[in-house]
C-alpha cells in the first residue's frame, strides 16, 4: 500500500500530506489536517454532515478519493469566519437557533454557502433544494431554512456598502 503525497488548497492555504490509497477527502481533512468540523455521519453520501466546497461547489467529502482532487481548492467550515468576524450564515444560525446538537451544522452551513455564493437571492424553495442532501434529526429544518434566508437578506443589504467601500 504505497502512500502518495497529495497537495490541496484548503481554505486558501496549500496543504501537503501523505495519504494511503483510497483515503477520502473527509478522512484527509479530519485525520491528516486536523480539520474536524466536517463530520462522518454515514460514510455513504446519505447524511451530508461532511459537506465541503470543492472549487466552490458543495460535495460529500466522504465520497471523494482525495487523490482524485489533488491540486484543487477546498473550503471547510473552519475557513468561513474572517478571524473573529463570523460569516453571516454563522451569525444567522446562532441568532435564529438553527443549531441543536450541532453535528449537522458544519455540512448544513457549507451546503448553504455553496448556494449563496452562486445565488445571492435564493427563494425558500432554493434553500430547501440546496440542503436536501443534509440530514438534521433535531430541528425539523425550519430554523435552518429561516437562518439561510436571513443570512442571504443580510448579505444583500451589506453588499452595496461593501462595493462602495471598495471604490
Amino acid at each position, binding site marked *: *500500500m504505497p502512500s502518495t503525497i497529495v497537495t490541496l488548497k484548503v481554505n486558501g492555504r496549500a496543504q501537503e500530506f501523505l495519504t*494511503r490509497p483510497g483515503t477520502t477527502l473527509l478522512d484527509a481533512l*479530519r*485525520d491528516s489536517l486536523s*480539520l*474536524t*468540523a*466536517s*463530520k*462522518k*455521519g*454515514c*460514510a*455513504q453520501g*446519505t*447524511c451530508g*454532515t461532511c459537506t465541503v466546497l470543492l472549487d466552490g461547489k458543495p460535495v460529500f467529502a466522504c465520497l471523494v478519493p482525495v487523490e482524485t482532487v489533488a491540486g484543487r481548492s477546498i473550503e*471547510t*467550515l*473552519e475557513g*468561513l*469566519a474572517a478571524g473573529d468576524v*463570523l460569516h453571516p*450564515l*454563522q451569525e444567522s*444560525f*446562532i*441568532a*435564529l*437557533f438553527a*443549531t441543536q*446538537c*450541532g*453535528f*449537522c*451544522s*458544519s455540512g448544513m*452551513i457549507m451546503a448553504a454557502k455553496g448556494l449563496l455564493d452562486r445565488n445571492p437571492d435564493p427563494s425558500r424553495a432554493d434553500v430547501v433544494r440546496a440542503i436536501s442532501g443534509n*440530514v*438534521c*434529526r*433535531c430541528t425539523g429544518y425550519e430554523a435552518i431554512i*429561516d437562518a439561510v434566508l436571513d443570512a442571504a437578506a443580510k448579505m444583500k443589504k451589506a453588499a452595496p456598502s461593501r462595493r462602495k467601500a471598495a471604490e
Partner: protein
Amino acid sequence: MQDLEQIDTSFFSAEREAELDVVGTTVPRVDARAHVTGKTQFYEDVSFPGMLHLKMARSTRHHALLKKVDTSAAAKVPGFVRALTHKDVPNNWYTILRLIGVEPNDEPVLPEDRVLFAGEQIVAILAETAEAAGEAAAKVKIDYKDLPAVFDVEEALKPGTPAIKPHGKNHFVYEGHHCRRIRFGDVDKAFAQADHVIEHRYQSAPIEHAPTETTGCIVKPEGDGRFTIHSNTQACYFTLDNAALIVGLPFNKLRVKGGTVGGGFGGKVDVIVEPIAILAAMLTQRPVKYAYSREEEMQVSSPRAAERIYIKDGIMKDGRIIARKVTLYVDAGAYSRHSPYGTTKAAAHMPGPYSIPNVWVDAHCVYTNRTPSSAMRGFGVTIGDFALESQMDRIARLLKMDPIELRMLNAYRDGDMKAHRKKAEGCALVEVMQKAAEMTGRNLPERFRKMSSLNKEGV
C-alpha cells in the same frame, strides 16, 4: 426568532406568579458559536497516536448455535492486531439494569454458544486501521447451526413455541407475574353495563433514533492504570459503573469524558460499545476506537420497540368511558436492555390522560429474535399514545360526538385517582385542548369553555 410561539399567560395565572430575571427569557445557546465555527469537540474529534480500531464480526443468523468460530483468516489481514471473544471478557454480562435491581442478566457481552439476532456481535477484531479491522472482521469464519426463530410477539408467548431465552420463557417476569399488571376497579362488570363495547388492535414497527452521529467511543490507557473513555454516552456514570462491572476493574480506574453528543434521543444509553473497547485497551495497552458504522447504527443499535396494543373500551351514550382494558406487547427483541422498565412505564401510562373508573392492563415484555429494542424519546408512551388517541377518535365517531368534547368530558383533573393509584396533580389536559380549539378557530360550547383541570365543573 421570527415565529416564536406565544406563551399564553391567561391560563393558570394564579399559579404562574413568580418574579424571574433569567429563567423564562430567551438567552442565546451557550454552544451555538462553537457549533457554527466547527470548534465543538465531539468524541470522535479527538484521536491519539497508535490508536487501534475495533470492528465486530456479527451474526448473519437470527437464532443459531455457534459451532465454530475461526479467526485464522482474519489474522492474516495486514494490520490485524488481535481478536477478542467471550473468553476475554471477565464478567460476560451486560448489566445496564442490574444497578437498579432488574434481574436476571440476560445478554452476554460476547456470545458464548449461541446468537439470538442477526447483527449480534460475536468476535471483536482489533487492527491498525479501520479498513483492516473491517476486512479482518469480514474474514472471521463462523459455523452456525440454525435454530427456529420467533418474530411475532403473540407467537412467542404461545404454548409450544420454543423458548429462545435461557430462563425458559419468551417474556420478562415481573415479580412472579408474566406481565406488568394494572388492576383498578372491575372492567368486566363495567363492560356489562356499558352502552357500547369496542375493541381495536394497534401496531407499530421498530423505529431508529437515527442521530446524525453514530454511537461510539475512544478509550485511552493513561499509564497510571486508569482508562479515559471519550464517549458520546447520554449518561457518563451509568456507562462508567456498568463498564467497570464487565471489565472487572475497580470503578475508580475509569474516567468517562462525554461532551456534546451528536443527537441521542435515548439511543446512547445502552452502554454496548464502551465495555468491549475498554477491555481491548486493557489487553493491548493502546488507545482503541469502537464506532458504529451507519449500517450498524441503523440495524444493530437498539431501536424503539415495536408494540402491539389491544384496547377494549366500555362507553356510555353520553360519552363517558367507564372501562378500558389494555393488552400491550412490547417487542423487546433478543435481550432486555431497558425494555422491562419501558414496559412498566407503558403500563403506568394507561389509560391515558383520562379518568376511567375501571382499568385493566396487561403489559408484556416479550423476547423475539430481532435486534434488542431499548429507550427512545417518549419511551413506553409514544406508541401507547398513538393507540389511545386513535381509539378516542373511533369512540367520538361511534357516538357522533365532537372529538375535543369527548376528550374534555373524560379528561383527568386534579385530585382524580389514576389507575396506578397516584392522585393526579398539575393537570392541564382540558386547557391544552381549549387552547388548540381557540387556535384552530373552533368555538367550544360554553360548558366546555368553562371546564377546568382544577375542578369538576361541566362533567
